[in-house]
Each structure stands twice: as structure tokens, then as C-alpha cells.
């Protein structure tokens, strides 16, 4: 989606933000939760990310790719969160019930929970950049150009990051 926020009226910004929220809030919240392993903190950071997006829109900054920008903002906010909490090695304790899929029976839910926690624990041992690359590519289905913009790398380098991250993850699973 290409939005030129320059000269936008406040109402236009609100509409654009609402649209971005509808499209990306779920995946951004999940992305952040996988990084901080704290649902309340993930909600707070998600809210901050959308406020920052709105601030950029209000300033009339050109936003070429809202989704990529949101991920970039989110990653920066998570760094701030780590700094404030003085804890850079948070571990995943439990996936909150609210994140688990509805419409499955209890056994399926328990299985999903177990498998998810297992893979997330393994992923938490990866470097931030590697874990983010895997999250964005395989879970949130961002394109390589989008991920390379977020990681500030070339597309080839991004592919290498993903490939190496997978290889590393195999050692931890």
C-alpha cells in the first residue's frame, strides 16, 4: 500500500490509521509478543507503534510501506523495552489462552500450545535479527524486499540471514 501522507487532513489520517490497524494490528502484536514473551507488554508496545505511525502520518512523512514501517517501529520499541526492563533474555513462559486458536478441541489446543512453546523456546535462542527474519518470513509472510528494508540489508543478504537462521534453529530444536 502506498500512502502519501503529505497534506492529509486529520480525518484522512484517522481513516488511514484505522485501516492500517485493521490490517496489521494482529500480526504486529503477535510479532512483538514472540519477541518480549509478555502479553501485556506486547499490547503496550503495539499501541505505541500505532501512535508512532500516526505521528509520522500527521507530520506528512511519506510512507511507502506501512507494514514494513510498523515492523521497523516495533523493533525499535522492543529495544527500548529491553533497555527499560534491564532484561534482554526474556524467556517464553506460557502462551496466554487469548492467543490460542479457538474452534479446536481441548486436545488439539493442548497440542498446539505444546508445539508452539517448543519451537518458540528454540527460536528464543537465536539472535534477534535471525528470529525476526524467520518470524517475518514464515509466520507473518512479509516479502523479501519488505524484510530487507526492515533489516536494512540487501535482498540477497536477507535470504542468507533466513537460511542461516533456519540452520541454526535446527541445532536448537
Amino acid at each position: 500500500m502506498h500512502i502519501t501522507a503529505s497534506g492529509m487532513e486529520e480525518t484522512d489520517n484517522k481513516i488511514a490509521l484505522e485501516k492500517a490497524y485493521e490490517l496489521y494490528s494482529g500480526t504486529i502484536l503477535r510479532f512483538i509478543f514472540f519477541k518480549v514473551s509478555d502479553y501485556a507488554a506486547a499490547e503496550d508496545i503495539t499501541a505505541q507503534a500505532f501512535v508512532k505511525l500516526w505521528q509520522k502520518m500527521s507530520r506528512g512523512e511519506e510512507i511507502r510501506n506501512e507494514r514494513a514501517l510498523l515492523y521497523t517501529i516495533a523493533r525499535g520499541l522492543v529495544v527500548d523495552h529491553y533497555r527499560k526492563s534491564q532484561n534482554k533474555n526474556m524467556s517464553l513462559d506460557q502462551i496466554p489462552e487469548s492467543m490460542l486458536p479457538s474452534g479446536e478441541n481441548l486436545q488439539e489446543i493442548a497440542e498446539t500450545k505444546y508445539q508452539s512453546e517448543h519451537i518458540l523456546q528454540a527460536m528464543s535462542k537465536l539472535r534477534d535479527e535471525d528470529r525476526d527474519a524467520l518470524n517475518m518470513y514464515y509466520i507473518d509472510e512479509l516479502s523479501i524486499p519488505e524484510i530487507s528494508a526492515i533489516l536494512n540489508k540487501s535482498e540477497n543478504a536477507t535470504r542468507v540471514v533466513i537460511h542461516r537462521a533456519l540452520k541454526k534453529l535446527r541445532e536448537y530444536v
Partner: protein
Amino acid sequence: MNEEEIIEQIKKLKKLGPKQPELSLLKKEVFARIEAAKKEKPQQSPYFIYWPFSHLILSGAIAALLLFALSAAFYEPLNTQVRYSVNQIRIMAAGNQYRKAELALNFAEGEFERFSKNPSRVGSGELEKATAITNEELGKLNLTGEAGKYTTEECKKLYLKFDTMLHELADLAKKENAQAFLRQIEEYEKIADQKLNMY
């Protein structure tokens, strides 16, 4: 587990996610924060709330310090104290976090240069203090920048500069066998690298 199976496991995480009612509640929170941000007045430094009075005090304090610095110019320990105090005041009075971080870094670089000429004093605590202050002030930067104050790119440049200085400092500390300082530098380097990785 082979690569394909791992990818499958990762993809299964797509099943997890917040429910719509929670997202709706969060949306209200987002818009409430936006409304609050709109009403928020531009933040003023507490040092300048009562401008004329504070201004006089600050000017007086700086003048006194300058006089003190001049008289102490030839007495090294006092000279050092004065330089650090003046630097602290300058950092405190700086208008935004980027400026504070920049002042701290410039000061640390100056100290590094001084100590490079007299390396036997590395480990005496002064250079450590200047580096710690720089690390602290840089740590308070908002990496994505702040509207009208500083940009992401400026933050990145500052971190790169700090990172370069740390590498050189580490060499100096190694040469002088200042182990405690070296450990401290390595810690700062780790933090700086993590921040730079975020760009």
C-alpha cells in the same frame, strides 16, 4: 527434524494470535493515546519552567565554575573535576537527548585523546566515568528518532562513532592491562552492537 519440518513448525505459529475483541479494546487505547498526544503541550525542560530565575541561577553557576576552572587550570586533579562538572552541566542543560548524547560522546572522545598521550593513567577512573556517561546518555536515545529533534540516521551515526571509539578504547585498555575497564568496554560494545543491529 529436517529443515522442511522446522519450517512447518514455524508456520504453525500462524495459528496463534490475539482475538478480535482484544484488538478492538487495544484500538480504543491507541486512539485514546493519540487524543492525549494531541492535547499534550510541548514538553519543557524542568530547568526552564521559571525561566528568568532559573536562567540567572544557571548563568551564575556556570560563571562560578568557569572562574573556578580558570584558577584550577594548573592543578591537574582539580582541573579534571572542573572539566567533568562543566561537562555534566552542559549535558543537563542540553535541549534534547540527542544533544546530550553528542556532548557526552565528544567529551569522552576528548578524554580518550588525552589519555592516549598519557596511557599509564588508564584505569584511574576518569576515562571510565566519561565512557559510562556516554553509554548512559546514548542509551536514553529513541532509536527511531524524535519528531523535530533528531532522526534515526543521526542516532545511528552517533552509535557508530561510539562503537568505533570503544574498539580503540579496548585496544588501549588491553595495552595497559586495565582488566576491569576492558570488561566494562566489552559490555558497552555488546550494547552498541545490539543497537546497531536494529537499524
